[in-house]
């Protein structure tokens, strides 16, 4: 079992965490840390690769916004790079990253994964709107979530959480080295580091931090409660969505507004192709072909191949889907891509008894029969 270290925040969460991360850099445990930092403009919070401990002043890891699933950033960071790096990421990001590792897109060997507790995120525009006139939004957000906000309607501090997060069974990042715990503790008093893996425990020793076997007392029950709420919401959402889309007509209806922008697949951390097959020659139809379709069917909605695209993508990656919801966030026409994929993924993942984001020792979903 892991060890816990409580860090006193005295009201400044980010400062407290920055101290520990700074020590990781100082003691040479890692040579850089990838961590969400506030950007000067519109208070955007973006993943930032920090080399200089001074620059940690701007970190905001618990900020309730995820402009992109950083799995692919982390994968890129670890590809052909032997220097040890730490990455501060959420559950959906860790799980997606591990899938990419299985597909040889990244490497976990020299990576110290610091998983943060996640109460969910806002859609970008909502976050910007809130952050524009809320001082220390992150702390306020954590405090109100801890007191049970968002339970029924998902609205927190006046804005709704992303639906993907409200359906997420994983508020706590699972396969990580170090866990940054905010659930079940009063973050104005303290946050907790949980040293999970061998690698994490070694870091703890190097940092010479005091530790104990017990974590925050209220943590387990708080997590359980959160998971229960979310799973209930998930089941209700998916059931409703399934009944809407249990025919091809339903599916066609849901994706009717698709414009083949492929934003969903660009945003998707599991869609790892360099170039999607739908932008290759295979799907480049000449006018004659399009005319033929229109002729034979009487009418042809354009652009074409939208259902084909979404169903093919399901066949390709629904087994790897971690449900982060970036696809829905990226869609310009508000297609519920996340709901669509999760409703398929629950079937395909069950069929092959595959849990994406599980440990690296498991086989990949894609592998199947090999020689």
């Amino acid at each position, binding site marked *: 079992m892991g060890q816990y270290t409580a860090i006193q925040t005295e009201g400044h969460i980010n400062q407290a965490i920055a101290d520990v991360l700074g020590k990781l850099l100082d003691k040479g445990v890692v040579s850089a840390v990838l961590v969400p930092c506030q950007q000067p403009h519109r208070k955007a919070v973006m993943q930032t690769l920090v080399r200089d401990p001074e620059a940690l002043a701007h970190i905001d890891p618990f900020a309730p916004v995820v402009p992109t699933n950083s799995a692919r950033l982390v994968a890129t960071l670890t590809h052909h790079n032997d220097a040890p790096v730490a990455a501060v990421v959420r559950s959906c990001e860790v799980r997606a990253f591990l899938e990419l590792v299985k597909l040889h897109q990244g490497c976990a060997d020299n990576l110290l994964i610091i998983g943060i507790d996640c109460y969910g995120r806002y859609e970008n525009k909502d976050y910007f709107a809130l952050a524009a006139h809320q001082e220390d939004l992150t702390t306020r957000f954590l405090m109100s979530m801890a007191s049970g906000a968002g339970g029924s309607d998902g609205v927190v501090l006046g804005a709704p959480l992303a639906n993907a997060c409200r359906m997420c069974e994983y508020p706590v990042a699972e396969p990580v080295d170090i866990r940054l715990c905010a659930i079940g503790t009063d973050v104005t008093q303290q946050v907790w580091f949980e040293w999970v893996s061998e690698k994490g425990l070694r870091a703890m020793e190097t940092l010479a931090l005091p530790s104990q076997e017990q974590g925050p007392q209220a943590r387990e029950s708080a997590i359980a409660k959160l998971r229960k709420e979310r799973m209930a919401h998930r089941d209700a959402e998916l059931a409703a969505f399934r009944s809407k889309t249990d025919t091809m007509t339903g599916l*066609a209806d849901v994706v009717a507004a698709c414009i083949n922008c492929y934003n969903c697949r660009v945003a998707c951390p599991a869609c790892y192709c360099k170039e999607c097959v739908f932008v290759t020659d295979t799907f480049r139809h000449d006018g004659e072909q399009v005319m033929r379709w229109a002729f034979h069917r009487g009418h*042809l909605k354009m652009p*074409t191949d939208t259902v084909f695209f979404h*169903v*093919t993508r399901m066949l390709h990656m629904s087994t790897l889907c971690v449900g982060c919801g970036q696809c829905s966030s990226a869609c310009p026409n508000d297609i519920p891509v996340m709901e669509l994929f999760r409703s398929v993924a629950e*079937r395909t993942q069950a*069929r092959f008894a595959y849990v994406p984001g599980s440990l690296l020792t498991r086989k990949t979903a894609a592998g199947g*029969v090999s020689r």
Partner: protein
Amino acid sequence: MSEKQFEPNIVAFLCNWCTFTAADLAGTSRLIYPSNVKIIRMMCSGMVDPKYVLKSFLEGADGVFIGGCWPGDCHYINGNMKARRRVALMHEVLERFGIERDRLWLRWVAASEGNAFADTVTAMTGRLKELGPCRVSREAVA
């Protein structure tokens, strides 16, 4: 269509070494079967990309038949097992949107089983008549 009995449209992706040869044998043996099936020759059932199945349904097929070698007899060692896995995946996804499992058949037919080929096609045609037309192409254009 309303007047005539519904005639399902079946696209068959057949392994060159077994089911395709069995189809040839069915011909040589003059076994009569419904004309609903149209054959596309593949080198192995493991070559059948799920996209081909999807494309067939989207273009108006009422059923898709993938014919491979019996387990252990694959000309390419185990391509048929890969096909089996892909078909399982497709069944899950297609069924989610109301496309019945019985519209996508994966069957093992050895080169010497002309009879089995004819029987399979006959049975599949019958089953698809029961299921009626597949509305995919009508409802989800290309």
